[in-house]
């Protein structure tokens, strides 16, 4: 498991260049271009279970969701950052990508440190030191537990259809 560490204000053009937004939409199309203009080694070297760590305002800029699709497709366990831009945050919820907002953990991390993530327990351990992060609100957990927003929406549609049938 590797931690890929980056700085503040990592925008979505750095995560996935804008020039590909209307030619690459599926996870398989996105994967080779992930972080292309930020870190040329990422797309080749990333492995299932790796963590992306960054500073403040991660995912700022465009509303494109390809970075989230790509992170899910390559098996990123979580993105840990000081803070996230709001559209990226929503996109992650909607795809079921785990985001951890924990400035203390980011500050404590040094190159080569081991990071162990316990999403359900709300804990991340960096070089043996444990940092806690708050759970998501129940409204949001319901989307994640449904397997992402589209499944959540489908359940709602089923419910509406059943309701109409009954009434």
């Amino acid at each position, binding site marked *: 498991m590797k931690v890929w560490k980056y700085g*503040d*204000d990592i*925008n979505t*053009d*750095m995560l996935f*260049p*804008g*020039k590909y*937004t*209307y*030619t690459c*939409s599926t996870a398989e199309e996105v994967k080779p271009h992930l972080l*292309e*203009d*930020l870190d040329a080694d990422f797309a080749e070297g990333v492995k299932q279970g790796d963590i992306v760590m960054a500073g*403040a*305002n991660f995912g*700022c*800029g*465009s*509303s*494109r*969701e390809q970075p*989230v699709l790509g992170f899910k497709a390559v098996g990123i366990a979580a993105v840990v950052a000081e*803070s*996230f*831009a*709001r*559209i990226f*945050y*929503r*996109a992650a919820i*909607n*795809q079921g990508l785990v985001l951890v907002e924990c400035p203390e953990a980011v500050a404590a991390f040094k190159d080569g440190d081991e990071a162990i993530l316990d999403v359900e327990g709300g804990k991340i351990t960096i070089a043996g030191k444990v940092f806690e992060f708050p759970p998501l*609100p129940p*409204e*949001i957990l319901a989307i994640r537990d449904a397997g*992402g*927003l*589209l499944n*959540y*929406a*489908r359940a*709602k*549609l089923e419910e509406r*259809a059943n309701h109409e049938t009954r009434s």
Partner: protein
Amino acid sequence: MGQTFAQKILAKAAGLPSVVPGQIVPIRPAHLLTHDNTSAIIGKINDDLEKYGVVRNDLSIIVLDHVTPAANEKTAIGHKAVREFVDKYGIKNFYDVGVGICHQVVVEKGHAAPGMILVGSDSHTCSYGAVNAFSTGVDRTEAAALMLVGETWFKVPPTIRISLKGALKPRVSAKDLILTIIGDIGAGGATYQAVEFHGDVASLDMEQRFTVANMGIEMGAKIAVFPFDTVTEEYLASVGVARSEYEPVWADPDAEYIRELDYDLGAIGPVVAMPHKVDNVKPISEVEGRPIDQAFIGTCTNGRVSDFHAAAAFLEGKKVDPRVRLLLLPASRAVLETTLADGTMEKLVRAGGVLLPTGCGPCLGAHQGVLAPGEFCLSTANRNFKGRMGCKDAETALASPETVAASAVAGRVTDPRKVS
């Protein structure tokens, strides 16, 4: 305790007497904007659409603008899929290639009004705060779910209050104002927060307000909103939206803010957001003289009639420096028609400008105006990120139409106030 604009509009929409920052509320937006990405969005829900259809055929506003006219077969196929979807489901608000950039089209066609909630699968959806609407961006998956169920959720944001005083000086524009604010607050300074503009907003016309609201996202803001006033009312009447059709919302005088900032408009000067972050804002005196390869006037930030008028004041009867490519990109067909009819576009083209079709292509490096390694573009757009104009080894800097026009003539970054 009084409530902010965001609190009031979200409480009203959720049917609650009041809400507090951090509270999550269900919302049924009046409209959902999507653009070329509509093809990818509907691609996620083909089977669901067959089964349930769209929740409302007047929810979506679809504008083809991002890679228009199509740059290759793949984007052409995407456009075709969108047209087929529009026909099949009777989507009421569809604007094909050439009508304009989505954010300009939404306001120009009267789809955004005071007190309304709109979402869009584009980050610059925050633009309609200019007309006192609550509008913000979402991702493609959320747009897909909205097409099916028509509702989503918002977390009530805390609010920054920005008070404006006085009026902008000649040759200084709303672009200089918003870049100055972003430079102060930072690219993440308003993340998950709303921004309200108060004070002497009447000195800013509607096009200047669009420029400011459009860039709210560049400081991370969920919304950037102006109060409703006679400027708003007159603009909306001009696009066919009557006063009886909307209910403005504004903050209570005793609303609670997390941060309050004051700006003296008369003290704002020309600035440039240097590569590669929008908050890397420098007074023009620090970057004057820097040679430029490309000058870009237009986009959803600065592609309106007053922007081209401002540019023409510097370019009429002059020639663009031979080492500079000047690109002109009107925000809509209506803007193009007006600037053709009043002779502005002719002046700009005679000066050496290359007129591009309305759309977003150059701004995100999709097509047209892509830069080569080592090149420097001075642009009126809203983003200067690394790689943004299609090349990671090129540089883009952001400025006002006045500054870009003056610089195009000189061939180097020029303070528009110093041009005689």
